Structures are given as structure tokens and as C-alpha cells.
């Protein structure tokens, strides 16, 4: 390890070893959530995750793909150790794609390529024409 403080090299004999084992988040359900509603999302870990799941051991957050400083933290509200699943509460965010970052207190960072789509979709508008003087009742479904 090389440590330099204020342009002075700090002499040391530190040696650190790595653990080659990597564990990942496999899936997230649902993968698309509303920007304005609080919703539960379930994250599936690899089934051979080496630690017993305890919700206090996990830190989960969602980071905007377009703005890395915009981070929404998700509380882990339940775990299913038998199936290695986490249930998190997503509290809403600006629309966009968010990458999921998972951290375990003992294992450390869990590899994740999971994406959460935060968006609102309109599926239909009824009616789609009306008087120029207003007064038309429109139902937007989404």
C-alpha cells in the first residue's frame, strides 16, 4: 500500500488480501415503480449467499443513472433468509432509471447490475376531444 500525505510518502509494510468470492443481486421485482407512490420492491440475492439475512445488516439505495449525486435510500423492511430475498420500501423519486446498490455489513458490497425504472405511464385518455370552451370530462388511465 502506498500512502502519500502532503507530498510525503509514508513508509509502511501493510499487506492486504482480497476475497475472491463475489455475490450478486439477481433480480428486482417490480422493476418499474411509480415516482409518487411508496411501494415495496423485492431484491433476489444469489441463493448461496454465505450469511444469514438480517435486515439490519443491509444498506440499499437507488442512484440516478443521469445524476450520480441524486441518491434515494431504501429501507429494508423484511428479509426472507430461506430464499435469500430482501423487501425494501421505495419512497418515490424523480422519474428516470436508477441503479440499485446493495451493501451487507459483513460481506461488504454485493455486485448489482439491477436497474429500477421510476416512471409514470399513461395507457389511455378518454375522451380525447372536447369543446374549445372547456368543460369536457377526461379520464386518464395509467
Amino acid at each position, binding site marked *: *500500500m*502506498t*500512502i*502519500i*500525505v*502532503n*507530498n*510525503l510518502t*509514508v*513508509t*509502511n509494510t*501493510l*499487506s*492486504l*488480501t*482480497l*476475497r*475472491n*468470492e*463475489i455475490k450478486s443481486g439477481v433480480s428486482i421485482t417490480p422493476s418499474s415503480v411509480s415516482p409518487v407512490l411508496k411501494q415495496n420492491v423485492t431484491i433476489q440475492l444469489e441463493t448461496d449467499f454465505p450469511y444469514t439475512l438480517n435486515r439490519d445488516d443491509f444498506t440499499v439505495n437507488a442512484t440516478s443513472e443521469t445524476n450520480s449525486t441524486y441518491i434515494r435510500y431504501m429501507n429494508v423492511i423484511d428479509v426472507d433468509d430461506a430464499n435469500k430475498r430482501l423487501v425494501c420500501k421505495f419512497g418515490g423519486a424523480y422519474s428516470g432509471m436508477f441503479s440499485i446498490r446493495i*451493501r451487507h455489513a459483513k*460481506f*461488504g*458490497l454485493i*455486485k448489482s447490475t439491477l436497474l429500477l425504472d421510476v416512471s409514470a405511464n399513461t395507457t389511455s385518455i378518454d375522451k380525447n376531444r372536447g369543446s374549445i370552451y372547456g368543460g369536457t370530462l377526461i379520464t386518464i388511465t395509467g
Partner: protein
Amino acid sequence: MEYNVTLQKLINGQSVQSIFVSKVDTKATIKVELPTEVQVSSKPISGKFRVKCVDASGQISYSEAAKYNEHNIWFDTKIMNNCTGLYDRIETWDAHTHAYKENGRANYIYFKGINEDPGQFEIVSDWDTPLEGDNITFFQETTRPYGTNLFYDPVPFEMLKTYDTIPQIVVTVNDLPVVCHNLTCGFNYTEPVGEIASFTFDTATNKLTLVGTAMPSNASDIYMVEFAQSTCTLVSGTVAETGLECTLDREPTCGSWVPKLTAVLGVIPNAVGVAKLDVECAVTSAEPDFDLNIIGGDNITISGEHFPWDLVKNNISVTFNDADSTTCTPQVS
């Protein structure tokens, strides 16, 4: 015996009303009671007058008619009732030169809340009931107690400029500029007094010793001594013109440093030949040092001595000596 008796006129009447002659024993006494409120005009003054009001544009208006001896407590109402633009903007006072009980009359008209310079007001005889008396004269003048400008607008702060040949100290309070008292906020840069010729630092005791010339001889004249990002407390009895000793208030930060001595007239410079002193860091352990996550994200605590206590003020770089290493970012110190 002959007595000359000159009768004086009451200020608001014809004359004395009577002369008493009474007998006392075998002598006769003539007693003349002179009025206290007198006028010199042999012909009793009578009639009314008005005040000729002139505004800043020269427009003339006249007050209501007032009796020649009208008291000023009623006088202001007659002006305000008739003169243009003066309602509730004047007060009238008895002037000392001719107070109410003395010969003649004088009044002050005090303007208030008028943002312009009115013309000269005058006393004129009423046209319906003219003043009558001997040698009636009028005199008027404007009193400006604070100079020739009776009224002026406030000068906007942006227009207050001075031409200075020395730097100015600019003060703001809550982002608002502060006006300088008497517009004198100049600051003189002076040549520093004294010099630090050399210094030593004992890492065992954290004691810093400065040697120099013309340094402050009183501890109260020394504001601060700093070294290796630590303040230094003076050792009692060591402050002299030739040097001082002090003890660092915290562990020094590793790096290359020279002392900084700030006295009553500012920083006392180090001599050109004063070299920087290296303060070394020492590393004792890293925790954890095994089973580190290969994809990163683990927090590693590196322990040792003389590490920086402020991550902002210091330049810190930590790297691993393997081919696939990534940067290690200091989080807290």
C-alpha cells in the same frame, strides 16, 4: 413740584385707564400704574394682518386675517387654513426678539415634512381691516440652523464615493455594505518588524523553539503561533525579542512545515534561509486487512501517528500496489 407723566399704550388697549391721586396724612401722592404690556406707538395699534405664503415654485397665497395681537397658538391655524400645501406642515412659536408682552410681535414659522425650499414668507396688512399705528414696520427672515441647505434628499449609498490613496477596509453585515464612519477606513500596509531566523521542533515533547530578532517581547503582543497545522501555546517566561518557546496544542500533521508567528502588527516573516522541517507520518496497522471484497466498497481503517485531522486542508493519496487496484478515498480522519 411738577411731574411729567408719559402714558404708554397697552398692547391690546387704548392707554392706562386712570391716574390715582389720594391723600395720605398731610401729603398727597400721585400713583401712576404703568402697564406691563406696552407699545411705543402713541397711536394704539389696531387692525388685522395676514401672512403672505410663498411656495417653492413662487405661488402666493394668504393666510386668514389675524388680529394685530393674535397669540401664536391660534396663528398657525389661520396659516394652515388658507395657505396652499401647508396643512399640518407648520408650527408657530413665540419668537424671543418680540415676545408677546413686549413691544411689537414676532413669530417663528417652523416647517416640517416639506421636501422643498419655500419662498420668503411675509407679514402684510389685511386689506379689509388694515393695521393702524405709528411707524409700523415688518421684518422677516429665514433661519437655516444647519447650513445653507434647509432641505435635501438623502444621498444614495451607491453615490457615496471617496478617492483614496490607500486600501480601504470594506465591511459587510449580513451581506449589506456598511458605511464607514467619517468615510475614513484606510489601512496602511507597513514593513514587518522582526524576523524569525531559525527554529527547532522536538517531536517527543511537541515543543517549538523560535529564534529571531526584534520579535515581540510581551506575550500579549503575540496573537498566535502555528506549526504543522496546530496552534502553539507559549511557554511562560520564554518570550523575548530574541525568541520564544511554545508547545503544540495537538499532534503535528505530517508534511513539510515552517512556523507562522502572528503578532499585533501581523505576521512576522521567516528569514529567507529558514528551511522547512519534515514531520513524518507513521503507519501501524490497517483493519480489516484480509477478506477484502474484490469489487471494492470496504472501509479500511489505517492507524498511525501524525495523520491529518482535516481532509479538506490536506492532500492525501492511498493506493494499493497491485495491478488491478483502484483508488482508496479517505472518508474520515
